[in-house]
């Protein structure tokens, strides 16, 4: 999937992946896509909750080799 910006949140723990996601999204324009890579297992549930509450769409959430990859479309 194509994306406009990538956030490497590997090694960061709660609430830093969410705070940096928010920061990165604010630098995008509506409709653009942010890719987030995280290692915090708590970020899976948190990213869903963040998307639901902020109106940014979580396009996908996947895990491979202990890493979590999220695709978010800016509201």
């Amino acid at each position, binding site marked *: 999937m194509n994306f406009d910006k990538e956030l490497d949140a590997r*090694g960061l723990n709660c*609430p*830093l992946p969410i*705070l940096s996601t928010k920061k990165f999204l604010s630098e995008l324009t509506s409709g653009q896509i942010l890719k987030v890579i995280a290692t915090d297992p708590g970020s899976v549930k948190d990213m869903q909750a963040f998307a639901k509450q902020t109106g940014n769409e979580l396009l996908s959430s996947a895990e491979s080799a202990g890493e979590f990859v999220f695709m978010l479309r800016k509201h």
Partner: protein
Amino acid sequence: METKKMALIATKGTLDWAYPPFILASTAAALGYEVQIFFTFYGLQLLKKDMSGLKVSPLGNPGMPMKMPFGPKWFKEINWNMPNAVQALVPGYENVATSLMKQTIANNGVATIPELRELCMEADVKMIACQMTVELFGFDHVEFIDDIEYGGAATFFEFAGETDICLFV
């Protein structure tokens, strides 16, 4: 949609209990909440310019695991529980526990308290110091960071009365 609001009262002045108010406040701000924190009693320590004095105490805290943040896995897994009487008698025990805690925090990619407070400031979290306890403890306004306000219980209620979430930490 109307902006959601959250008010917190921060009353603890230790390194471990400094986390909940700053984590909740920064996260709520990221979710679009308008946030205010009222710092009172020992919570005032969290508004000091110099927060290097924040410590964690395992004394009288049976819930706190005492594990080493370095060495091989088997060594890190040992829980070094000490009787309270021993902890109280060993000079510098709290300092050692604090530096081990700081190392564990860094190892786990957890933000430091100064970092989290800065993130809160950037996100426009409003911070209010309780003027009464500032005077009670003999603190001076110059000891505290700029960009905070001073007020009393009535100031807190002015905002708290309109919030969706209101917590005492």
